[in-house]
C-alpha cells in the first residue's frame, strides 16, 4: 500500500521534475541560442512598434495604388491629398463588388497581400482592411530572415561574443527606420526580407549549417520573388540565375546539380519575361527627376546635356527643380511637354549618358549614397493623424542606428569604395582558398557577400538613372540595406577574429616579458659594450 502510495504521489513529482529539466534543457538548447534570442527580442520590438498603439508605419505616397488595387484593396480617402504623405494610414477598404479598375498590377507582393486580406476578412468580417494584418504576414518572414542572418554571423556558436554580435544585429536591423516599412504597402518591406534571405542562404550553405536543399529553395524562391517585385528588379534575375546555375559546382550530388541548373534557367527566363511584360512603373515624376535632379543638376552645361537627348536647350531653366515645384500640373500633363520632353527621356538613354560622363556619375553616386543613409524618406510621416503629431513626424523610438548612419557616417562614394576594399580584402582569401583547394563550398561566403554588394550597387545605379537623387522608387533603400548587411557581417567577423586573437595571447608570458624589459636593455647594453 505504502509503495503504491509512494508510487502515486512521488512519481508525478519526479515526472514534473524531469519535464522541467527537459524544458530547461530545451530552452537552453533552442530559445537561449544567440540567434533565437535575437529573433525573440525583435519579435517583442515589432509587437510594440507595429501592433500596439501608437501604431507606427510609413505614410502612403500613392505609388502603390496599382498594386493594392490588384488585391481588391483601395484607399478610403480618409486623409486630404496633402496629408497622405504626412500621416500613416491604418485602415484601407476592401472592395465588396467586382473590381473593374483597369489600373491593377500583379507583382510578387500580391500573394502576401491576398493572404493578409483573407486573414483580415476571417478575423474581423468587415470591409475594412487593417494594414497590420499585412504587417503581421511580412513580420513573420522578417523574423525568419533575421534568424538566417543571425545564424550566418554566430556560426551557431554560443559564446559571449555571439550574443554581442546578435545584439548589434538587433540594433541595426530592428531599427524602427527599417521596421516601420513593414506597416506599409511599399515593396521595400518585402525586398528587405528577400535580400537578406538571398545572401544569408548562400553564406549558410557555405557553412554547412542547415540542409542544402532547404537553403537552395530559399535562395531560388527569394530570387524569383525579388525579380517579380517590380520591373526594375527584373534584370537582377539574370545575374541571380547565372549565379544559381553555377551553384551546381558546390555539391557533387546529381539531384542537387539538376535542381541548380533547372531553377537557375527558370529564373533567367522568368526575369526576362517579367522585364518585358511588367509595366515599367516609371512615372512622369521619376522621369522628370532623372533629368532635372540628375543629368541637368550635375552637368557642366545643362544645355549641352539636353542637346545630347535632343531636347530643347531652353529646358535648362528646370535644372534642379522638383516635379511639384516649378510647373503647374496642367502643363506637366500637356501634350506639348510629353512630345518635347518626356518622350525623349528613358532610363537607357540616361544610363548611357552617365557612362559617357563618369564625372557626373561620381557626383550623383556621392549624392545618392548620402541620401540613402536616410533610410526613411524625410517627407513620409510615421504616425496616424489621430495621434495629433504635426504632419510628417517621424518616430525616434529605437532609431539609434539610423540616427548614427544619417548623421555621422560619411555619405559619399569614396567612403563606399574604401569600405568595398576592406570587404574584398577580408573575404577574397576564402574565395582564393576555395578555388585552389577545389572546394567550391568554401567560396560561398565570399559569393554571398558579393551578391549583396552587386545588388546594392546595381540598385544605386538604377536609382540614379530612374529618378536622379530623389529616389521616389525606393531603390536606395536596398543599397542602404546591403551596406548594413555587409557591414554587419564584417563586424561579426571582426569581433570573432578579435576574440580569437585575445584567446591566443598568453597574458602571463606577456607580463613577464614586460617585467623583464629592463633586464633585456641592460643585457643589450652590455652586449653593445662588449662589441665595442
Amino acid at each position, binding site marked *: 500500500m505504502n509503495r503504491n502510495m509512494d508510487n502515486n504521489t512521488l512519481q508525478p513529482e519526479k515526472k514534473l521534475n524531469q519535464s522541467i529539466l527537459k524544458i530547461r534543457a530545451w530552452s537552453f538548447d533552442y530559445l537561449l541560442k544567440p540567434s533565437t534570442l535575437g529573433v525573440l527580442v525583435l519579435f517583442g520590438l515589432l509587437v510594440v512598434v507595429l501592433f500596439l498603439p501608437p501604431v507606427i508605419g510609413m505614410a502612403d505616397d500613392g505609388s502603390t495604388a496599382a498594386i493594392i488595387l490588384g488585391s481588391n484593396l483601395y484607399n478610403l480617402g480618409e486623409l486630404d491629398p496633402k496629408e497622405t504623405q504626412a500621416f500613416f494610414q491604418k485602415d484601407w477598404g476592401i472592395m465588396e463588388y467586382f473590381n473593374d479598375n483597369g489600373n491593377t498590377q500583379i507583382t510578387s507582393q500580391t500573394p502576401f497581400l491576398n493572404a493578409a486580406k483573407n486573414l483580415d476578412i476571417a478575423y474581423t468580417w468587415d470591409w475594412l482592411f487593417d494594414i497590420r494584418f499585412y504587417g503581421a504576414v511580412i513580420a513573420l518572414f522578417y523574423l525568419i530572415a533575421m534568424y538566417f542572418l543571425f545564424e550566418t554571423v554566430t556560426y551557431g556558436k554560443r559564446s559571449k561574443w555571439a550574443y554581442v554580435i546578435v545584439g548589434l544585429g538587433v540594433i541595426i536591423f530592428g531599427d524602427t527606420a527599417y521596421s516601420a516599412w513593414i506597416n506599409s504597402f511599399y515593396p521595400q518591406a518585402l525586398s528587405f526580407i528577400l535580400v537578406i534571405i538571398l545572401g544569408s542562404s548562400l553564406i549558410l550553405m557555405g557553412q554547412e549549417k542547415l540542409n542544402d536543399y532547404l537553403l537552395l529553395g530559399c535562395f531560388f524562391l527569394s530570387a524569383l520573388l525579388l525579380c517579380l517585385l517590380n520591373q526594375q528588379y527584373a534584370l537582377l534575375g539574370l545575374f541571380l540565375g547565372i549565379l544559381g546555375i553555377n551553384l551546381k559546382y558546390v555539391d557533387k550530388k546529381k539531384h542537387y546539380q539538376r535542381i541548380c541548373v533547372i531553377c537557375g534557367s527558370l529564373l533567367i527566363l522568368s526575369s526576362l519575361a517579367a522585364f518585358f511584360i511588367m509595366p515599367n512603373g516609371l512615372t512622369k515624376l521619376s522621369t522628370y527627376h532623372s533629368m532635372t535632379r540628375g543629368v541637368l543638376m550635375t552637368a557642366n552645361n545643362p544645355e549641352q546635356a539636353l542637346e545630347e537627348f535632343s531636347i530643347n*536647350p*531652353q529646358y*535648362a531653366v528646370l535644372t534642379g527643380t522638383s516635379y*511639384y515645384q516649378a*510647373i*503647374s*500640373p*496642367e*502643363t506637366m500633363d500637356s501634350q*506639348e511637354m510629353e512630345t518635347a520632353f518626356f518622350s525623349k527621356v528613358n532610363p537607357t538613354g540616361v544610363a548611357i549618358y552617365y557612362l559617357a560622363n563618369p564625372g557626373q556619375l561620381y557626383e550623383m553616386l556621392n549624392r545618392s549614397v548620402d541620401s540613402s543613409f536616410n533610410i526613411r524618406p524625410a517627407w513620409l510621416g510615421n504616425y496616424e493623424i489621430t495621434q495629433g503629431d504635426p504632419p510628417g513626424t517621424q518616430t525616434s523610438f529605437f532609431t539609434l542606428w539610423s540616427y548614427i548612419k544619417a548623421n555621422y557616417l560619411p555619405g559619399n562614394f569614396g567612403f563606399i569604395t574604401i569600405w568595398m576594399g576592406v570587404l574584398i580584402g577580408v573575404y577574397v582569401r576564402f574565395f582564393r582558398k576555395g578555388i585552389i583547394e577545389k572546394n567550391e563550398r568554401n567560396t560561398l561566403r565570399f559569393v554571398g557577400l558579393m551578391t549583396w554588394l552587386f545588388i546594392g550597387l546595381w540598385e544605386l545605379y538604377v536609382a540614379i538613372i530612374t529618378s536622379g537623387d530623389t529616389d521616389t522608387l525606393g531603390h536606395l533603400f536596398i543599397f542602404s540595406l546591403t551596406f548594413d548587411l555587409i557591414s554587419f557581417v564584417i563586424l561579426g567577423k571582426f569581433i570573432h577574429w578579435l576574440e580569437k586573437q585575445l584567446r591566443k595571447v598568453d597574458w602571463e608570458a606577456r607580463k613577464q616579458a614586460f617585467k623583464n624589459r629592463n633586464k633585456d636593455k641592460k643585457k643589450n647594453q652590455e652586449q653593445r659594450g662588449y662589441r665595442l
Partner: protein
Amino acid sequence: MKQSILILIVLALLVLPMSIIYGEDAGDKETISTTTEVLLIYDQLAADTVYRDNLNTVETLLSALSRTAERSSIDDYRAGQMSGYQKVIILKNTENAINNPAFIADCQNYSGALLYIGFVAPGLIPSLDSVPISRQMGRTVSVNMNGLAGNSIWIDDLRVVDERPGPGETTIGVGTSAYPFSKTLDRLTYVPTLISDPGFALGLGEILKDWFGLATAAHMTLLIPDIYPFSDLNMVIETSNAFYASGIPFALGVVPIDDNMDFPAMARFYQVLRYVQSRNGTIIVHRPSPVTVSDGNAVLSEKMYAVITKMVENGVYPLGLATGESLFFDKVSNVSPLNLFSSGVILPDPGITEPGSKETWALSSASLGISLETIERTSSQNRNFGNYPINTTIVMPLPENEAALAAQLGVINNKWLSLTDYKRLNNYWTIGQNTITSSASGIRVNGLPVSLSYDEEPIEADYRYQKPPEYSLEKIFTAGNTFLLTVVGIIIVLFIVIVVFSRRVYLNKFRKIAHNEEKNEPVKTSPEQEDNTP
C-alpha cells in the same frame, strides 16, 4: 548728448517700420475694397448635372466685373445675413426643397436688389411665382446679345420667361421664336436658365453689369497664355511678327519661374519677351499654380517679388495678372504681391469649387477670358464683329505650327474683331522698388517713359553653371590652412636641420672611435705619414 542721440535712433527705428507697414496698408486699400458688395447664396453644387459649373460661372463673372462678394450656401446661411447687403444673388441649381427657415423668412422680407438664377422655389419670393414660365424639354437654343448670335447648344430642360423680348434685350433663341434672357420686376431680376456655356455666361454678364449699374464701354483683348521659358520661342516670335504685320495687339501670358533666373536660357527668354513687346505685345503674368507653391504663402510672395524684379531689370514689363477666380477667395495677405496688380484676365478655373462660405476680393479692372472657338462660332449681323457687353479677353493658345497660326490669324481677321491694346488701358502697380504705369501714352517705369524698341543684347556664352560650393567658416579654415602650412614649413626646416646635424653627430660618434684608435696607435701610423710628406 550721447543719450539724446540714442533716443533719436530708437525713435527713428520705431517710426521706420510703422511707416513701411502704413505704406503697405495704403497700397492694399487702393486696389481692394474692404467690404464685399454682394452676397451670393447657392443651394447646392449640383455635381454631376449640367448645372455643376454654375457657381463657378457666377463667381468668375463677379471677379471679371471687379466685384467683391461673400459666398454662402443656404444650409450655412445665418439669419439676418442678407440685411447687411444692398445686393443679393440667389443661385438655385436644383429643385430640392429649402430646409433653412431663417433663409426663407429673410428672403420674403428682403428689400434690396435681388438677382435670382435657376429653379424657382414656390413661395420663397412671392413676386416670382407670378412670372409666366415656359418649360421646354430638349431644345436647341442660342443666346443673342448686342447683335451677336451665339453658338447653338442642346438643352435638356429649358425654362424661359414666356414673354416677348423687348428691343435690344438679350434673348434666348429657340428655333424661330425668341424669349428674354431675364425678367426684371421692380427690385428683382430673374434669370430662369443658366448652364455652363460661354453664351449663357456672357448673357448673365450683361445682366450683372446692368444690375451693378456699370456703364463703362466694354473692350476686347487677346491673350496667348501659358508661355514658359521652354515653350516654342520661335513660334512666339513668328506669331508676334504675324500679329504685328496684321496690326493685331495681343498679350502674352508668362508663367513665373523663379528657379535659375540667371541662366542663359532665361536671358534668351527675356530677350524674346522684349522682342514681343517691340511687336506691340503686352506681357501678362500668370498666377503661379497654387499646387506648385504649397510650401506656404511666404514662398509665393518671395517668388513673385523676385520674378517681377528680374523681369523689370531685363526690360520686360508685365502689366496685368492672368488668374482663375479661386485666387480671389484667398486672403489678400496670402497672395501678395498678386493683389497689387490693377488689372487682370479671369481665366476659367479648372479646379472644383470648394464648398463653404468665403469672402472675395477683386482687382480694379478685369476681363472675362473666352476661347477663340467661342468667337469662331458666334455669328454677327454686321460685317464688323462688334463687341460683347462686358470686358472680354480672347484666350488663344500658342499655335503649334505655321498652319495653325495662319488658321487662327484667319479667324481673327475674318471676324473683323475690334481688339484693344492691353497696355493702352490704364494699368498700374507698385511691387517692391518698381512702380509701373501704362496708358495710351505708353509705359512708364518709376515715372520715366521707357522705349519698347528691341535691341539685341549678347547672352553670356561661357556661363558657369556649377558654382563652386560655398563653405561656412571658409575664412577661418583658409587662415587655419596657412597657419598649419607655416608651422609645417618650419617643422620641415627644423627637421632638415636636425637631420643634417644629427648626421654630423652620428658620424662624429664614429670619428671619436676612430680618434681613439688613432690615439691608441699613433705611433705606428704617424711616422709613416710624416715620412710620406714631401
